[in-house]
């Protein structure tokens, strides 16, 4: 039982039997009601006061006892409010994190926007990513060489075509979509397929990519932000550079996709 030093006054003002009854009644309950205990002691005091006159010291002590009792009651209520502030702060932080997660900022000001089922690029880099002056496209794969030739034909020299893909893939389709001004290619190996496409980025009507219910993440290489996500068992990389929207998707692993993207920027010594 919590007790202030001034409660000693109340204890001395009551008979031993009355005090025992008061304490027993409150302590026997699972949730001692200190308000009720204070009220009971107050009633006892009132009865005692009717019997004899209190000294000024006793009156002051009684007032302090009541104040202390009130403080004890308030302090027991306050812990219920204390968890609310960190709870509110946590909730606000979670809401902000969710809001931020809906739009991600990549290097150069490229933005990606997505829902549970779709992804598309919004905005475009503030600054162009120049092709290095000494850039030479080198690859051992003739399939990739053909893709690069079409890219140069349609968009000029660009550092966007991978120089490596896993062994065993053959070019199933390669072409230009005149209507959309896009270069595309499909390479297959059994049931596996790699899809590569490049098209002009259109801010008012961006390309929409289907995705699984995952949050895309950014894979940055050579200062270019590549958005990575999955869709129906395929890993997809989407990025924009120099006004071109680029996409590589594969049914291989995510690590294989990273290797394909890395090969775009590999320096050949």
């Amino acid at each position, binding site marked *: 039982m919590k007790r202030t030093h001034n409660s000693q006054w109340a204890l001395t003002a009551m008979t031993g039997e009355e005090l025992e009854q008061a304490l027993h009644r409150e302590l026997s309950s699972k949730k001692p009601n200190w308000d009720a205990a204070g009220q009971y002691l107050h009633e006892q005091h009132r009865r005692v006061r009717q019997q004899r006159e209190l000294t000024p010291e006793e009156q002051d002590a009684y007032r302090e006892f009541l104040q202390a009792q009130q403080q004890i009651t308030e302090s027991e209520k306050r812990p219920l409010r204390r968890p609310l502030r960190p709870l509110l702060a946590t909730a606000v932080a979670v*809401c902000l994190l969710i*809001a931020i997660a809906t739009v991600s900022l990549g290097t150069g000001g490229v933005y990606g*926007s*997505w829902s549970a089922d779709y992804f598309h690029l919004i905005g475009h880099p503030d600054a162009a990513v120049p092709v290095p002056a000494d850039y030479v496209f080198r690859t051992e794969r003739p399939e990739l060489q053909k893709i690069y030739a079409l890219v140069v034909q349609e968009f000029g020299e660009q550092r966007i075509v991978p120089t490596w893909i896993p062994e065993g893939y053959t070019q199933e389709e390669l072409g230009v979509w005149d*209507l959309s001004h896009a270069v595309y290619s499909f390479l297959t190996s059994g049931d596996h397929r790699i899809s590569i496409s490049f098209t002009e980025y259109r801010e008012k009507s961006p390309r929409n990519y*289907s995705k699984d219910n995952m949050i895309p993440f950014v894979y940055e290489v050579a200062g270019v932000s590549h958005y990575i996500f999955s869709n129906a068992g395929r890993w997809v990389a989407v990025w924009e550079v120099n006004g071109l929207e680029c996409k590589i998707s594969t049914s291989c692993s995510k690590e294989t996709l990273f290797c394909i993207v890395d090969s775009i920027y590999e320096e050949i010594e």
Partner: protein
Amino acid sequence: MKKLLQHIAFFSALVFILSAPVSAIGIMPLASSHIESTDCHIAVSSSNLVTVYFSIEGTDFMSELGASMIRVQRSTDGINWEICDTYWASDHPEMMGSGLTFNSSITYQGQAGYQYRAFIYFHAKNSSGTRTAMAYAY
């Protein structure tokens, strides 16, 4: 306790709202297992010929791949849109194909003084089912 529950309910609703899909105008989530990507845009010539370009890529070979419906709309203020014409794949075979990817276009003779957009209903079908996607072309 009542206030605590009210706060929890409020922030739960806030979290739900902020988690709602964020997407460009007119895009509705439906596709993932059949459609890998869709693309569309509009070009208006000097003679006000409106050409709606669209392309679609499937996640695998599709027996039907293309646009099942295209609705051309026009507006004078960019806010209020009226339907000009609707094109159905059943009437325009050039809107539907098959394979891994398909791209095509339709044309509409517009008039000066209007801006145009098109609502496209993409379609992909194979032995495992059918999926759709929708988008606006500007």
